[in-house]
């Protein structure tokens, strides 16, 4: 249906590409209110206007009446409708729903197109057979009352409009609240008519108010978009106080004659409607690129914010992991009882006595008679795992708490973080996961010893001590080590380290032992890193992915660029419209 749509321009394809991107962005829940507002606007605009218009310029043309509460929107609407259709009243705000005057045939297209996604409870469609198919009159609720839902509905309808009628009063024309809506109308290049109700009766005062209102509109950059003249002023229709057609809850038709006339032209002339629709579409397309760009900007900014938030967690977990490593390094977390047991087992060995003199030698001799017959492997492993887990859990909880407290100050996720108690400490499965990893770590030490021993020709004694006991020795050596001091007068950790090292180096040789211990240490570091990463991931799961946001921004920018170079401009549309005029409204 080339003549009545812009189907051949590549625009529908672009819009089809844009739609899922916008949906994705909406689903992601933008972090800032402003960003949420922009993407909401883009979605409404795509859904309520652009998609409808590129399908057909003959889709019902939407004339929207907006304005502050109590300005007389419904009264004007009734005037245009020629009957009391929208309730007027003294309690503010009066209208909490949007009333739509529509030809019966246009009901479905309107609900499926322009008004798609609007809550049906907030719409009332009134059939008007006198109106031709292709023209709909909408009365929006207010923009500025304490009913904030009214503002949201009006914002949605603005995105769908082809022409705006802004109703205000002599009291309200300088109010701040509605100007955002007026600016949106300006940005979209929509034709706008301003109706100033409740004008003072004095002609001089009327002039003064009209001039002042015109000045404000001009200062805000609002121009009449219907004429070719870029500087043309907006038409302002002043309605004097009390100029009412009381019986119909309407204004006197004479007062708004020029507006009625404009509506009448649209009613009677399909070409005029099509021209208006085309102009609205051109304006919409001109504004679409920048809007998409703005949403892409939001995505990029949010990616930066998300990354910064992630960094808060990363910093906390890295800091606590480093603190944990430090706490483990000296072996201070090991209970000395376990070390003493190990020292009693290993230290009684003759190897030690070779390095002792005098009384130490004799003491060694005596204590070797009391030497435990069985290496205390299981006890030491259990004690080590248990202590290590407790210490690690402690630091992981610290990291979680620090992150949760920091994140509770990030507005976008604050509620979620505060609600989720599990985020505030290490997770419940922390202990079991770490214990499993530590068991695996100890098994790997055993494997490593067997591999090393096979090539090294292990001492017969080493073989008799057993791989398990050697593994325990290597495990302890990865926490405690001493730099060549005799352990006699140092603490139990250093003493145990001393005899432990002597045993291991006697069995494996100095170099091989060092490598064994270094490998065990590296693997332990990996175990801890992995466990902390798992804890941190619980936090990262709360956030959107910065990479996905950046990718989304990228795709949005691609679409925005293509929109900018789309071979559809005013001229093309004029051409399309001209074509439409010559071929007439032939096919549906």
């Amino acid at each position, binding site marked *: 249906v080339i003549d009545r749509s812009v189907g051949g321009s590549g625009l529908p394809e672009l819009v089809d590409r844009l739609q899922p991107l916008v949906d994705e962005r909406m689903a992601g829940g933008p972090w800032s209110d402003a960003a949420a507002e922009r993407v909401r606007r883009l979605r409404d605009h795509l859904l309520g206007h652009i998609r409808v218009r590129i399908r057909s310029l003959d889709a019902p043309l939407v004339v929207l009446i907006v304005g*502050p*509460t*109590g*300005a007389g929107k419904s009264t004007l609407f009734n005037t245009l409708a020629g009957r009391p259709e929208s309730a007027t009243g*003294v*309690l*503010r*705000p009066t209208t909490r729903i949007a009333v739509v005057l529509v030809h019966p045939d246009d009901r479905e297209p309107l609900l499926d197109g322009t008004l798609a996604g609007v809550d049906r409870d907030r719409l009332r469609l009134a059939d008007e057979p006198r109106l031709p198919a292709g023209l709909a009159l909408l009365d929006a609720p207010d923009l*500025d*009352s*304490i*009913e*904030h839902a009214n*503002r949201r509905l009006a914002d949605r309808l603005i995105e769908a409009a082809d022409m705006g009628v802004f109703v205000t*009063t*002599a*009291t*309200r*024309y*300088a*109010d*701040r*609240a509605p*100007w955002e809506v007026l600016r949106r109308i300006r940005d979209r290049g929509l034709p706008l008519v301003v109706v100033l109700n409740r004008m*003072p009766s004095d002609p001089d*005062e009327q002039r*003064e*108010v009209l001039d*002042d209102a015109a000045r*404000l509109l001009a200062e805000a950059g609002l121009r009449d978009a219907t004429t070719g003249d870029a500087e043309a002023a907006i038409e302002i229709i002043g309605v004097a106080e009390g100029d009412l057609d009381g019986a119909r809850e309407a204004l006197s038709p004479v007062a708004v004659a020029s507006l009625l006339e404009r509506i009448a032209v649209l009613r009677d002339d399909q070409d005029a409607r099509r021209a208006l629709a085309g102009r609205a579409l051109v304006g919409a397309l001109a504004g679409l690129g920048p809007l998409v760009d703005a949403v892409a900007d939001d995505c990029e900014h949010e990616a930066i914010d998300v990354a910064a938030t992630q960094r808060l967690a990363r910093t906390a977990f890295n800091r606590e992991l480093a603190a944990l490593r430090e706490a483990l390094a000296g072996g201070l*977390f090991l*209970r*000395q*009882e376990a070390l*003493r047991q190990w020292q009693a087992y290993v230290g009684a060995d003759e190897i030690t006595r070779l390095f002792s003199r005098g009384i130490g030698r004799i003491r060694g001799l*005596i*204590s070797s008679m*009391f030497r435990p017959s069985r290496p205390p492997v299981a006890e030491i492993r259990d*004690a080590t795992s248990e*202590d290590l887990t*407790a*210490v690690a*859990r*402690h630091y992981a*909880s*610290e990291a979680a*708490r*620090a992150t*949760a*407290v920091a994140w*509770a*100050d990030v507005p976008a996720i604050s509620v979620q973080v*505060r609600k989720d*108690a599990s985020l*505030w*400490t290490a997770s419940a499965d922390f202990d079991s996961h770490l214990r499993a990893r530590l068991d695996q770590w100890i098994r790997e030490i055993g494997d490593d010893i067997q591999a090393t021993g096979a090539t090294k020709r292990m001492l017969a004694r080493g073989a008799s001590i057993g791989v398990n006991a050697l593994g325990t020795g290597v495990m302890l050596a990865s926490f405690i080590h001493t730099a060549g001091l005799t352990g006699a007068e140092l603490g*139990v950790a250093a003493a145990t380290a001393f005899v432990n090292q002597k045993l291991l180096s006697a069995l494996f040789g100095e170099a091989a032992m060092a490598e064994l211990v270094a490998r065990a240490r590296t693997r332990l570091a990996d175990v801890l890193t992995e466990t902390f990463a798992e804890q941190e991931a619980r936090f990262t799961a709360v956030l959107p992915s910065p990479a996905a946001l950046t990718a989304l921004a990228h795709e949005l920018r691609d679409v925005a660029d293509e929109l900018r170079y789309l071979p559809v401009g005013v001229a093309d549309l004029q051409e399309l419209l001209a074509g439409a005029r010559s071929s007439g409204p032939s096919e549906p």
Partner: protein
Amino acid sequence: MSARPPGPWPPEIPKPPPSDRDLPAWASATGAHIGRCLDRLDEVMSFAAALGVPVEGAASVRDDVLARMGFPADVYTLAFVGGTGVGKSSLLNALAGESVSATSVRRPTTDSPVAWVPGSARSQLAGLLAHLEVREVREHADEGLGQVAILDLPDMDSVEPAHRERVEALLPRVDAVVWVTDLEKYHDAVLHDAFLHRWIDHLDRQLVVLNKADRLTVDDAERVRRDLQLDMDRLAGGDGTGPGVIITSAIREGSLGPGVGAVRRWLAEGVDAKAVVRSRLAASLVNTIESLAIVTGVDPGSEVKPLLDADARARAADQATASVLRVVDMAGAESQAVAATRARARSTGGGPLGRVSSGVYRLIGREAREADPGAFLARWRERGSLSPAVDAITEAVTEPIRRAPDAVRPALLAVVDPERLEVGLAAATDRAIAEHGPEVPTSRVWPLLGSVQSAVTAVLGLAAAWLVLWIVIRFQVNEIAVPVLGQLPMPLVILLLALLAGLLVGRLLAFHAGWLGRRWARRLASDLRHAIGLEVADTAFASLDWVESVQRGVWTAARAAREECGERRRS
């Protein structure tokens, strides 16, 4: 980690300096004593500051109050606040019966405040008006209006943001307000959300004027008025105490439209200016105190809720105590205690052989290792770390941190500083152990048994010597007559009997020592458990208790403020 409070812990709560303010006489009266209200605010501010809650807003209210008290209160200030075009200036002109403030159809009209004051009070008001930065002042000689300076303010909803800023800067400093609105604007979001909602509680004398009622029938106008009155009551707490709503008509200069008379009467009704100023200051102070209390997590309207409920607290303390006891190892301590008692019994009641074995055990260090409960307990650090105990407490305290108001959270986070907690728990454990320093029990029976044992040993020695001698001599000399007990030689019998006696006495000693030792060990363990439990409970929540005591301080001051400054409604 958040900033930890520096210095000793818990930090001292700074006491506000004793108030020696030089207050005007009008500021103190039964019902609302501004000096005392200020003291309460100072208290709450110092508590809040100790919790790290920002108090700048409260300080500025305090400054405004102090500034207001520097000016006379014989005349109070009343501001007309409302949107553009609702007729603030017209209302003033109608009250005055002449043009006081310029009106116009251009919006917005008034851009700087205009004051309308009784001529008699002009000079007295000069300082206050200058303080409020009101430069345009008009006089009147109408004595019927009461001692009031009416300020016609600019609008707060037009495209001129500077107008709204002026209104917001003046609102905290005026004594009373008339909210002016009209049939179009009475439900505007800006009026309700940004002004009424925020200020109704901070003011005492206020009125709502619904203008331009002549656009409607009398009945309709009354319907709108009731609608708005309902809103006002709701805002003020729903108990029908909201500011009254008066309907007025669009007013032309010089004509007293319907309703303007009512406003006039409201202005004139037996109002004491000093009371107005005092109530306003009190309302402002009480509400500032209450808002600050809410920010610190305290609701002055109800009881103080503990940060951590008693159950959770007891659970965490039990868990921590159990963890500490596991490290201290009570079973180990008990067996050491029994061994120590036995060792002592051995050395006093074991006879010469007992002494020898005691000496050997001491030499190889077995006694120090296995029979010294004091040293064993003191070495608790070697048997594990307090991490699990610390974690039990930090995890319990995490819950209140999570639920805390934002402003208090950093202070609470500092509370769960695990290092400080660990040091505290370790000290507590040491303290408990030191207090129950084990004194190994002894018994008078032991030396007795010892002498018996010694005697038995001597007999044993003699019998052995006799036996040896007998054997040696028997082999050298052919035969020597030896007393024979039945078929057995006497020395052998004595030897066996002595051995049996020694064994029996030894058993008796061991049995007695074991019984005594176990009894002592049990007592020691239960004392220690109890002491550690108490110490842990004390230490674990010391910081939380500190925060709670600060909060209780806030609550007490806020309650006192309610009493002393008059009960105020809260939204």
